[in-house]
Every structure is written in C-alpha cells, then in structure tokens.
C-alpha cells in the first residue's frame, strides 16, 4: 500500500555509518544447525520477494502461448516483446501513453506544491517560534499517521461540492497535502541546521525570509530530495483517490488504467469484450507502470544516502 512508503525513511535517515564501523566479522566454525535455519529463512523470503519481479520481467517477452507452455522463468523473444508493446500501445489508440503522461503530470504538479508549501512549514516548525506551533506539529503527526485512503470518500464529497470532480485539481490538490514531508523537513532542520547559524544571520541583518533562503534552503537539498522521493512514490502509486475522482478513462493515471486493462483480459474476466488484452500485454503494462518508481528506487539508493551523509556531518 502506498502509505507503507512511510516505513523506509527511518533508516534512510538513520545515521549513516552507524554500525558500519562495528567489527562484527567473526570467524565461525563449520555450519551448524543454528546457521542453516536462518540461512534457509533468508533464501525462502528472497525467492518470495524477488521471484515475482523476475517473472514479471520475463513475462513481458513472451506470447500468451509461451506464457502457458514454456518454463515460467525462461526468456521469450525480443520479437514477442515488440509485439506486446505494439498491441499495448494499440489498445484504445496509445491510451497507455496518455495514462503515463497523466500520472507524471499529477505526481509532479503535486510534488511542486508539496515542496513549496511543506519545506518552509517544516523549517518554521523547527527553527522559529510562533503561536500554535506545537498544535500544528501534533496535528501534523496525527494526520501523518492516518492512511491517505481514510479521507477519500469525504474528499470526494468536498470536491464534488465545489464542482471540481474530473479536473486535474481534484487529484493534485489532495496529493499536495503531505504532512509526512513536513515532518521529515522538521526533523531534518531540527538536527542538521545549527540555530546559532541562523542567529548569526539575523544579527547580520538578514530578515527571516532571507535567512531561510540564503542559509536554510541551500542546506535543505537532501531533505528536499527525500520529501520529493516519498511524495512522488506515494502519488504515483495511489489508486483509490484518482479512481474515485476521475470519471473519464482518458484522465486516468496509469495505476487506474491497469485496472481497466485487467477487466479486458479474458482469462481474468470472461465478459471481456472484443478488445481483448492478452496476459503478456498486461504484464508489460504493469512493468511500464512501475518503471518510473523502480528507476527512482534504484537511483535514490545511492543519492539519498550521500545526501544524508552530507546532512549528518554538519552536527
């Protein structure tokens, strides 16, 4: 579920290098039962987590017949991959590309608003005093722990009342409200930005706004990247909100589009019409749908850690 993306932050943010210097390497005698069992556990779960992903990669290269007859973990052919791609883009005339474009549009517009609203807010919660600060902080924490799906039906009622159902904003604006990002920013500035530095700037005559722009923002690059990462992943993978808000299939983000494709696969839905989607095409569509997030995952691994290292050494 998308909200689960909240989880991994913690260690991303955890002190880089904590434990890395520990001399845990110890020479061990030959394998004992106490080592076989844990090893087996790791391998069983490795298969559980990875096998479906590998299968998905391979399924996109097969024809439907190959998918059924061949070894599940065999490679099909580049030709079949090409055909699946052509068939997929042929579905309702390139609609998959439109869905991808929609997903990107919703995710990035929301991300921009999230950053513009959230980074200053997290900064202010950490570095300034103002009336209502604690109340805002506690509210942020509580809302952050609530799953995003909680408010979907009430949000629909609200957006419906202002006649925005089906518009870009019906999805983008609720996405933009991202309390977890504010919390991450708050934590980041609390620990990584020395207050003395700001005080020095103030004594030198900086206004609060200048202090934020000249001192806090340049130091905030790691947390901007981090908030951007989580916000993007959460928005890209959201299903329920756009499913409810967007009535027209040409407005769907790719996640909701996958559901539409699924209903056209005869093996899963015998009532599928003539515009049947073959299973390898659905597998390819799934791959295409997740590829931006997957790329961000692979790319962010190194980038985020180095960003956090930069943040940590400032203390």
């Amino acid at each position, binding site marked *: *579920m998308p909200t*689960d*993306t909240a*989880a*991994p*932050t*913690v*260690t991303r*943010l955890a002190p880089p290098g904590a*434990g*890395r210097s520990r001399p845990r390497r*110890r020479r*061990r005698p030959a394998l004992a039962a106490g080592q076989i069992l*844990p090893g087996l*556990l790791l391998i069983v779960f490795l298969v559980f*987590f990875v096998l*479906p*992903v590998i*299968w998905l990669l391979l399924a996109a290269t097969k024809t439907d017949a190959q998918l*059924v007859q061949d070894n599940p973990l065999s490679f099909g052919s580049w030709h079949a991959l090409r055909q699946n791609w052509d068939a997929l883009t042929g579905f309702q005339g390139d609609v998959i590309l439109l869905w991808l474009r929609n997903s990107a549009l919703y995710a990035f517009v929301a991300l921009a608003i999230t950053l513009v*609203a*959230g980074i*200053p*807010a997290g900064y*202010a*919660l950490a570095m*300034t*005093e*103002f009336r209502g600060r604690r109340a805002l902080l*506690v509210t942020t924490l*509580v809302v952050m*722990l*609530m*799953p995003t799906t*909680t*408010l979907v*039906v*009430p949000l*629909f*009622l*609200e957006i419906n009342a202002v006649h925005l159902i089906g518009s870009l904003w019906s999805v983008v*604006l*609720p996405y*933009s*409200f991202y309390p977890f990002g504010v919390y991450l920013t708050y*934590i980041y500035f609390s620990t990584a930005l020395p207050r003395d530095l700001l*005080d020095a700037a103030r004594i030198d005559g900086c206004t*609060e*706004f200048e202090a934020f722009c000249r001192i806090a923002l340049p130091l905030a690059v790691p947390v901007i990247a981090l908030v951007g990462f989580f916000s993007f992943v959460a928005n890209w993978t959201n299903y*329920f909100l756009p*499913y*409810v808000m967007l009535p027209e299939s040409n407005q769907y983000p790719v*996640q909701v589009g*996958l*559901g539409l494709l*699924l209903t056209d696969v005869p093996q*899963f839905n015998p009532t599928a019409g003539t515009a049947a989607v073959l*299973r390898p095409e659905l597998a390819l569509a*799934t791959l295409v749908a*997740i590829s931006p997030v997957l790329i961000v995952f692979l790319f962010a691994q190194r980038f985020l850690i180095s960003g956090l290292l930069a943040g940590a050494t400032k203390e």
Partner: protein
Amino acid sequence: MNLAPVTGSASTRPRRAPRPIRAVRGLKAGHAFVAGYVVLLAAFGIVPSAYGIYFAFTNSANYFAGLSNFTAAARDFRYLPAVGHVAGYLVIWLVALVVFVTALALVLHQLPARRIGRLVRFLYYIPGALAGAASVMVWLFMLDPTVSPASSFLRLLGYGTFGQVIEPGHLAVLFAMIAFWTGAGGWIVVMYGALNNIPLDVIDAARIDGAGRWQIARRIQIPMLRKWIVYMVILAFATGTQLFVEPQLISEASLGVAGRDYSLNQLSYDFAFQNNNVNYAAAISVELLVVSLVVAAVFVTRSRFFDAD
C-alpha cells in the same frame, strides 16, 4: 541518534532559552512560512473530515439524523461480513509482519557478510516499487496455476485453477500476502536500522556473560526493538483497516468469486457510487476515520515516540 521518529534531538536545541528578539520576529515569519501548508491542511485534512462528519449525521434532506446512518449502515447485510473480512486480514497480516520482519531483521543483522546483507535488504525492498494496483496484477499471475512460476506448489496444495486459488475463504490470506510482499521490505530496513542503534557494549557484555545468539535476540534485541514493532503494528493496523485496491481489483478479475463489498472501504464506495447514498457512505468513512485518528493520536501522545517537544 536517529533522525527519524526518535527523541534525542531535543538536547541539541535549547529552545526554552529566552531570546526575545527572535521570538517576536519569528512570530510573524513563522506564520508566513507555515501559511501554505496550513491552507492545505485545512482544505484537505480538516474540511473533508468535517464534511464527512456532517454527511454522516444528516439525511438526504440535510436534516440532523442522529446515529441513524450508522445503525442503518451496520444493519446492511454486507456490513458485518466486511468487518469480519477486514479483521481476519488484519490478524494474519499483523502477525506475519511482526514475526517475519523481526526474524528477518535479526538474521540479516547477524550476517557476517555486510555486502550480501545490504543487497538482500535492497532486494526485499524492491517490491515496494510495485505498491498499489501493480502488486495486484503481479499476484493475479502468481496465483493463476496456468502461468504461475509456483504452479507446481499450488497444484501440490490441491489448487488446479485460478478460481480454486482465490476462493473467498482464501482471500484474507492472499491479501495479507500481497500487503506483506510490498510492505515488509521497508519495515525490514527500518528494523535493521533500529538494531544498528543498539549499543554494541550491551551485546558484548551479554556475550561475555555467556549468552548465545538466541538469548541475545530474545533478551536484548527484541525488547529494544519493541517500540519499533509497536510503531509498525500501529501504522499497519491503520493502513489495513483501509483495505480497498486489492479486493476491488480481485473482484474485477475473479470471475465473480470475490464480491465488490469485501472490505469496509469498498462498502463505503458502493454506498456512495452504486446506491447513491452518501450518508451511509460517510458514516462508514467516519468510523474508519475515528479508528485511524484514535490510533494515531494515542500513539503520538502516549508513546513519546515522536519528538514533538
């Protein structure tokens, strides 16, 4: 010192120190900095909650309806089964999370080869990229014996067709499995980080006293992980009550085996969009809202997990 939800940063911030100049200037600037966020919080956090509550307590003619929407929704023949489904799913999912995430984090932490450990953690985490509808697509294939790489395993269990695998009695387990597949990797990374924060001296002292690996895990590591485990269970519980995308997609792909009213959120959706009864829908939404609000508020205020000074 953990940057994320942990206390400890307070010591580096003498906020109570009297600094009148900044306090006065910060007062205005602070409000300006949070203004955009507060608008979003109000418009998409507070207003919809209030609006949902309004609908839940009124009828279609906009008159106050007391609890009648709640009682009527609860009397619907689909309501109790949906509560039961969600409860069953939650039990399986939470138990699996606690047992396997803790065990895997401990085992990974013991691994002498750090590079392999890091790679394995990353591989466990990858399915997180397939959160949402994509995970359901993948698992539809995994559970279809005609194409699944685990088809021999499925046949061994006596399931030869897709319909047999996803029969209604299996759904709670299957949804828990999908949720575990996408979410557990992230939690394993978190638990691993928490294990790294346990001072090595404590573990060394125990080792010198003759504690074995199992005893160290049971008497030192697991107790010290407890607040993280509680955090995980609370978040997973709140998320789990919201079950929607998995049953919704399965219902569209299951040859009619799974209904469109498996979970409470689906029922709320159906009330709103199939039965045109937004008041019943809002009543269910408010119930789910109260559950997650109470859980979150109790956790934030009681656990001292977050540094909200």
